[in-house]
């Protein structure tokens, strides 16, 4: 029995009869309706968009070089020439705040992306073969117990240890973030897949003789991915925090690379002596950005929930899924 998309027991993001253009139009209209009815979500997207634009256009909009010291203007308070003031070596805080997301976002996106890709892949396999026998069962158990061990360590301490082992570099931080996040996606995907693989449309595919790899790729993963996407956004924000935290304790990027965590760490001692600006502005930028990603995560979670989606569609008027 074929099930319609978004019906209980049916695939959430379905395929079927509507074309790609129709799906995109539906998704866009739905997205706009969501932002219209939930302006806080719009705020999150605006924050992240602004940060991303500043990161891309940093060389054009930053008033000074972010890595050139100018000791003639060290620790100047905010003024027209230096809107966010200068730090202990005379570097312009505003310019460094603008350049910093190039590093923070890049590390967080790549690190989280890697962990999501690996975790999702492993989670799908483990979940799909959970009740299998023989080697697949053994491998599933091995992967899950490895994840248990990995998660037994405090994440931050584990990340510091990884950076210490692989050396202080951006690549090491990316690797650390990817590594500590893999179990999150692994467990999330596994739990989703364990439910979905019992759905009738999966059983139907199996009975029709499709290979496991095809079933996983075509029917299981697309319908299990929504929570992963929601987690992705929250995790990016969290990874930015982790990157900043690593830099704060001296295990992150090298000086004088503009990075919010290292800027806070460098400026923190000056708070006691009255120069609050070298650490306050990067701290604010960090907090707002993480908040933005958190809001986006909440909006994705909203969109992934069929019941809330239907409620929104009913409340907002004529948004009809062309596939229905």
């Amino acid at each position, binding site marked *: 029995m074929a099930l319609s998309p978004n019906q209980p027991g049916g695939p959430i993001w379905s395929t079927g009869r509507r074309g790609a253009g129709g799906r995109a139009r539906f998704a866009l209209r739905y997205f706009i309706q969501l932002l219209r009815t939930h302006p806080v979500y719009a705020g999150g997207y605006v924050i992240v968009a602004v940060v991303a634009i500043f990161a891309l256009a940093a060389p054009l909009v930053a008033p000074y070089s972010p890595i050139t010291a100018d000791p003639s203007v060290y*620790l100047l308070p905010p003024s027209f020439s230096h809107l966010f003031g200068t730090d202990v070596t005379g570097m312009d805080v505003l310019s460094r705040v603008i350049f910093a997301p190039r590093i923070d976002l890049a590390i967080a996106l790549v690190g989280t992306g890697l962990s999501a890709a690996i975790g999702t892949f492993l989670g799908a396999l483990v979940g799909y073969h959970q009740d299998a026998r023989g080697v697949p069962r053994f491998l599933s158990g091995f992967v899950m117990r490895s994840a248990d061990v990995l998660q037994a360590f405090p994440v931050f301490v584990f990340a510091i240890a990884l950076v210490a082992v692989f050396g202080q570099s951006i690549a090491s931080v990316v690797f650390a973030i990817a590594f500590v996040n893999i179990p999150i996606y692994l467990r999330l995907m596994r739990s989703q897949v364990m439910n979905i693989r019992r759905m009738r449309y999966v059983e139907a595919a199996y009975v029709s003789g499709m290979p496991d790899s095809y079933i996983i790729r075509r029917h299981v993963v697309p319908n299990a991915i929504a929570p992963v996407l929601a987690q992705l956004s929250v995790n990016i924000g969290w990874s930015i925090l982790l990157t900043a935290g690593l830099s704060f304790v001296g295990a992150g990027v090298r000086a004088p690379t503009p990075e919010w965590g290292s800027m806070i760490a460098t400026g923190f001692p000056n*708070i006691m002596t009255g120069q609050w600006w070298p650490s306050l502005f990067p701290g604010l930028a960090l907090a707002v950005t993480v908040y933005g990603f958190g809001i986006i995560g909440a909006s994705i979670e909203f969109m992934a929930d069929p019941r809330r989606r239907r409620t929104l569609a009913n409340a907002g008027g004529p948004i009809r899924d062309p596939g229905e």
Partner: protein
Amino acid sequence: MTERDRLNVTRRTVLEGAAAVAAGGVLPASFPSIAAAAEETHTMVIAAPATPQSLDHEFDVSLGTIDSVGGLYDNLLEYEKVHDPKDPEALREDISVHTDRPYNLALKGKLAEKWEVSPDGTVGRFTLRQGVKSNWANELTADDVKWTWDRKLHLNGLGPFQTGVLGITKEEQIQVDGRYVISFHVPKPNPLLLKQMVNLSNPVYDATKCKQVSSSDDPWAHKFLENNTAGFGPYVVSQLTRGQQAVFKARADYYRGKPYMDTVIFKEVPTSASRLSLLQGGSVDIAQFLQPLEYITLTKASGVKVDAVPASFAIWIELNAKIKPFDNVKVRQAMNYALPRDDVLKAVYHGLADKQTGCIPIIYPNFTDKFWTYDTNLDKAKALLTEAGFKDGFKSTLSYNAGDPVQEPIAILYQTSLRKIGVEITLNKVPAATFYDFVTKREQPMIFYLDSPWVPDPGYSTQLYFNSKSYVDYSNYVNPEVDDLIKSGLETLDPKVRDETYTRVQQLVMGDAPWGFIVWPRYVLARRANLEGFTYYTSNNLRFQDFHR
């Protein structure tokens, strides 16, 4: 405009900062009781970065340890004290060459009441003060001094270096000539013979007690001395809780009279911001090792006094002469011309340091700055690089200590300056715990180093850092002429010959530029204004017995 004005440091901003830190919960919860204790006139509370890790200086040179050793033990001799020319409230050791005084030194007896050096300079004989008791009530005798120096020969700690600079390699060279007379026999005339008896690293132990607590596994009482006192100094340790605090009690039977401070509480407060806050609040009497800018904020704070005196400290960059391109003297010179010292003095030290214009401490005898040529000059640096074959510059790595907050800003200023002459350096932050491994392995092309030669002697200082056979020659510097001159200067007592010798050594070293010379940081003490008696020692430590109210 003063430094303080320029930085817009006001009482309000500092209080706001203090409140922020306090609100962050960084102040130890135990300080209310400490504050109450500090109000007692004869109790002194010190906020320090760390408690002593060991009280046995033979194996520990950490800051807390050397402060403790200065109060727990006495030496045979000491220098007379003079007022510091830049800070009349502070005293300092008179380490000048006095050609009108015996052995050209302004010395005073401490545990020794008389001393003499044989005319050929190979025997130093010391007559000990009689009736001096240890904290275990054992009388000081020559056997205590003998046991102390024999211990150095047997333990593989600092001792072999301390005996080595005197040429002492065997127990027989240290002879008991009577119950209260001890003599040291060195193979050649040695100008360090008396100075070593002042050195903080050579205190005298109570051998009677140490022998009682020793065992076949520990014949030199190391385990006992790590946590206990067995000496003839003015204080004893009454509590040592590592990571929290050490408490020292004054000895009523100290041979020079009981010190003013009955109790000294040495409290561990890891962050300098917290130490600053505690001093401002009156909870402690001394806040050690603050950041330069924190000292500046204290200069006009009520009830607080800041002393800043020239010291034996120096901070420099080891330019590894065995790693390209620093094996080329012109490159090393260029690196010196590119160092923005004035900027470092202004932006990093805020005036609490002096430009390092020589290779031995500015306060030491025979120092000269007449070979100083390295005022910042990027054109000259570029020309030297071109002559050395690096017209387009080169790439290298500069390692620095994550535990020293001044090193990163200095490195960033240097990086910016070097970029202008085509030299790209990567900054490598090394955790404090492993930094000294990096230094001692001598495998880094450029690495920061902060140190001080404790014995105020040009021979001792240059022997440490520029003799190619020295363990501390971390820049892998080799100049046979320098080696020979240092050695010859350590084998003569003639002040004129020594002056000529070490002037030439300084000329050669400055020309060879094995270091990137940066600054001499001053020794800075932040204290309550009613606490007096601060005295600077070349070992850069406090002596609790100096202080009074």
